[in-house]
């Protein structure tokens, strides 16, 4: 496995948030329809190229969302799911909430990119609720995205501030969706989930063995494509 692990180490240091966003952007196939979740996933839009011809969906009711609106572009009737003013690209379309969620839930989005508290070895996702006593829950469209998109990419730091792995055997936080995550992009590695468990596509600043020490589920290197 020594050979395998060195072959998947693709950077000498962990990735910054922007480097990770750039990597996710690069991995999105040309012509895809994509929904970027609130927070870290939003950064991905900064690295999509015109050549890729990606169409962004925002679940409040739009395809063809453009960059964040600036100055006199700001229009309070044109916002994204994070309630940030955005712009409209040529070829955009507007629709109501039921049509927008039908698009998500009907499996028409190629990829959604979401943040997460935890991802389990079987691809379960926890990203909406800490489950802490007294916490007021709020779910929004997270469950619809997690169960509806063809591919669900998670973007997160591998470790919590306390140093615990967010990739876990079984989620301890309340679930968003069961077996829905297909890839996990973290600062230390890219993980692929599948029927055979979790495989590691590449590591950043650590070897597979060093990564394995951080993550409490068995890891193996992904077969080369």
């Amino acid at each position, binding site marked *: 496995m020594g050979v395998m692990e060195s072959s998947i180490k693709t950077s000498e240091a962990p990735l910054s948030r922007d480097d990770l966003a750039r990597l996710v952007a690069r991995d999105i196939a040309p012509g895809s329809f994509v929904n970027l979740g609130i927070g870290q996933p939003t950064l991905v839009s900064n690295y999509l190229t015109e050549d890729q011809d990606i169409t962004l969906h925002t679940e409040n009711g739009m395809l063809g969302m453009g960059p964040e609106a600036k100055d006199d572009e700001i229009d309070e009737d044109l916002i994204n799911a994070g309630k940030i003013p955005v712009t409209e690209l040529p070829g955009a379309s507007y629709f109501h909430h039921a049509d927008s969620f039908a698009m998500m839930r009907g499996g028409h989005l190629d990829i959604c990119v979401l943040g997460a508290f935890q991802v389990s070895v079987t691809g379960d996702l926890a990203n909406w609720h800490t489950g802490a006593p007294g*916490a007021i829950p709020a779910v929004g469209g997270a*469950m619809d995205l997690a169960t509806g998109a063809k591919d669900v990419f998670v973007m997160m730091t591998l470790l919590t501030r306390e140093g615990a792995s967010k990739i876990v055997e079984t989620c301890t936080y309340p679930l*968003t969706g069961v077996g829905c995550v297909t890839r996990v992009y973290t600062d230390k590695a890219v993980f692929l989930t599948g029927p055979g468990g979790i495989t590691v596509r590449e590591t950043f600043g650590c070897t597979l063995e060093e990564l394995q020490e951080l993550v409490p589920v068995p890891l193996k290197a992904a077969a080369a494509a």
Partner: protein
Amino acid sequence: MLNFVESVQEAVSGIKDGSTVMIGGFGNAGQPFELIDALMDCGATDLTVVNNNAGQGDQGLALLIKEGRVRKMICSFPRQSDSWHFDARYKAGQIELELVPQGNLAERIRAAGAGIGGFFTPTGYGTMLAEGKETRIIDGRGQVFETPIHADVALIKALKADGKGNLVYRKTARNFGPIMAAAARHTIVQVAEIVPTGALDPENVVTPGIYVNTVVRVPAAADTTAGSTTGTEEKVA
């Protein structure tokens, strides 16, 4: 029956205590602020409110909640940085919360308007939001049974209405308007402009007038929500 009224006060005057009221809008886009203020002033209480959120800041729905007029919220995203009035009522056990994934909220509202008795969806399966609900495996996927959300009244905002009550919206302000209009027994709409019947292209009507009961004109505060650069085209009648 469709009627056009002169004031938001008149528009909401029929709303009774104990009503279920749907309120359109996502963020500020499509929020019928003036109708919500009128609902505040009209005194109706013991309300069940259906909205994506549970009020923000010190205005609109947040004030209704602060004043104890809302018995129950049906929404997808109550907790926000400025949802302090809801948070306080909720922590004090003074308001009931039915938390619904946003897509289930939209589909359940749509189901009410469409006469659907209930439906199965994968959203929420295996999560705490499906606890106590009927589930079944369909085509290999776990699914949850969800029921329609009907309302006595819907308060929504559109860009324009014609004389038949046909509506067009503007950009992402469309959001819940069309489905709430169909789900409520009585739909009250505030519009920036009322145009003659025939001035909206029949191809582009988003909410047909059959779903509209009361229309009131509330001119846009500035040029930000309506004006000459609107996205809807008009024919000369």
